């Protein structure tokens, strides 16, 4: 970034990297569509995609066509959008809070979104007016507001933020459990708990039209503020003296994080570790500057969650393991590595 590259060379550089990233994402999506409980040959997948995308009229079994176009394609696209959105949320929170442990899960944003979504689903609070996603957004915003206020009252440091986040997560998880215990019947409770662990089984095309634009808008908002995020390296005061309108940037970026987290949680449940581990992995690969880190984390998050979704479908034949379980099984050792590495650095 700070090497002397002439503007034309820089543009070419960025374009090449963008194309390479797009190719990786495309391959991951194709793999997500091909792999599954019933592996489908490439010819069938190609025919089904060609028929739906440009009306090729190739002969395909109607059931296969249905599995591919109505089930696997939207599921894979939503997995990619969720992975990208959660990873971006993690990158932004870690930069703003200046704590390596910050992510939407730990700071209570995911828990708030779950509570909001459950309140709408079970209690029917404002169900007609705001829907599940709206409920999740309000819950997430409320949770983050409470956590931020508590952290501020406790002294406002990065450590206080994480402690407040833990308190907030516990509170909102307890509220979710309370709503389920109080109002849900056994069938509802089972469904909700399965959803809370992260589940892409119910995803259809309308979910794609929500998740993908939110992830793209989120990425654009974050990229627009990449210099501001860099400026937070030495803290909010340093950012301010580098000309960043700290309060405005915080509000815009926290808004974007809340929107992304709430959308993803309302669609697929609360998936942990993506927002925590992927940003650190991306940092190891491309360094801490956000101009590279943001696209790299979005791409890595998308590919990771597609892979986790495929694994969740294939791990136990005939049964879908909640995706949150898969990400935690991979994420917990990843997290352990970050902790050990962090110890070596200080």
């Amino acid at each position, binding site marked *: *970034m*700070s*090497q*002397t590259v*002439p*503007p034309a060379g*820089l543009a070419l550089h960025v374009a090449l990297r963008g194309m390479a990233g797009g190719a990786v994402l495309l391959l991951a999506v194709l793999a997500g569509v091909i792999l599954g409980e019933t592996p489908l040959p490439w010819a069938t997948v190609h025919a089904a995609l060609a028929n739906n995308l440009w009306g090729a009229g190739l002969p395909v079994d109607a059931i296969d066509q249905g599995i591919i176009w109505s089930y696997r394609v939207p599921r894979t696209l939503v997995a990619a959008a969720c992975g990208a959105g959660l990873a971006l949320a993690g990158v932004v929170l870690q930069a703003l809070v*200046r704590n*390596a442990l910050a992510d939407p899960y730990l700071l209570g944003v995911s828990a708030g979104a779950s509570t909001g979504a459950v309140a709408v689903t079970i209690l029917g609070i404002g169900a007609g007016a705001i829907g599940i996603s709206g409920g999740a957004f309000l819950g997430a915003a409320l949770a983050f507001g409470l956590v931020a206020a508590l952290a501020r009252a406790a002294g406002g440091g990065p450590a206080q933020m994480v402690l407040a986040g833990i308190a907030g997560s516990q509170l909102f998880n307890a509220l979710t459990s309370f709503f389920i215990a109080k109002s849900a019947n056994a069938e509802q409770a089972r469904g909700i708990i399965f959803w809370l662990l992260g589940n892409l089984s119910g995803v259809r095309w309308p979910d794609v039209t929500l998740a993908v634009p939110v992830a793209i808008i989120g990425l654009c908002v974050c990229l*627009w503020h990449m*210099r501001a995020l*860099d*400026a937070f*390296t*030495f*803290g909010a*005061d*340093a950012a*301010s*003296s*580098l*000309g*960043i*309108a*700290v309060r405005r940037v915080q509000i815009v970026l926290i808004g974007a994080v809340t929107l992304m987290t709430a959308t993803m949680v309302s669609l697929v449940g609360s998936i942990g570790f993506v927002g925590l581990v992927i940003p650190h992995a991306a*940092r190891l690969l491309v*360094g*801490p*500057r956000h101009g590279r880190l943001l696209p790299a984390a979005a791409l890595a998050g998308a590919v990771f969650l597609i892979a986790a979704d495929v694994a969740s479908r294939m791990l136990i034949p005939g049964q879908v393991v909640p995706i949150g379980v898969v990400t935690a099984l991979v994420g917990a050792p990843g997290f352990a590595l970050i902790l050990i590495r*962090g110890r070596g*650095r*200080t």
Partner: protein
Amino acid sequence: MRIATYNLGWASGGRPIVEGITLEVKSGETLGLIGPNGSGKSTLLRLLAGIAPRPQGHVTLEGEDLRRMKRRDIARRIAFVEQQADTAEALRVRDAVALGRTPWLSPLAPFGAADAAICAKALAHVGMAQMADRSWSTLSGGERQRVHIARALAQRPQVMLLDEPTNHLDIHHQLALLRLISDLPVTVVIALHDLNQAMGCDRLAVMEGGRLAAIGPPAEVLTQTRLGRIFRVGGRALHDPTDGATQFRFHCLEDPL
């Protein structure tokens, strides 16, 4: 660039930390801020930089109120080097200095060759040119401080605010830094603990309990009475016959002379 304050103050939890500061620093002047621990030097610098929230009174830059200016426009004029700003990121020295270009860049005007040249020059100024690719975590305290100063220089400011910049530096780098600052054609406000180093400033402002106790040329400000009352030390002025400079030799007031 002239920076002035009128009745400037700041309170935390209802307790005044700094109050009633009215002063003016002329264009190109170096004002030294001295005072015991907790006398409000750092807070005054934060107020001058316009980053302390909800200040009382106001700060003007060439007569323009800081609160009416955009953060970016302030950052193009004022650079602030805090005490002990640290990061856990695996940032390279080059990238830390490049942060200084932030107020001059936008999504449509990205970091270019001219910015890289300014950063390289800033690094050379603090004697860190050969360390551009070192990682932040491998730097010593003094090296980090010099990178912060290079970052501030890369901002190309007209006013530099420095909070005890010679902390952590060895004696060579302390003297080199003070000379660098006095050679810069900018207005400088610098908080210093070493009163002998402060003697090199154009004027000194003495802080005591959040208030401005005195301001003026070093020889007029550092009187025996003031040293005793504010700093609780005695000082004997010694003259160096080679250049006529005055240095103090301090002793605790309790010590027998």
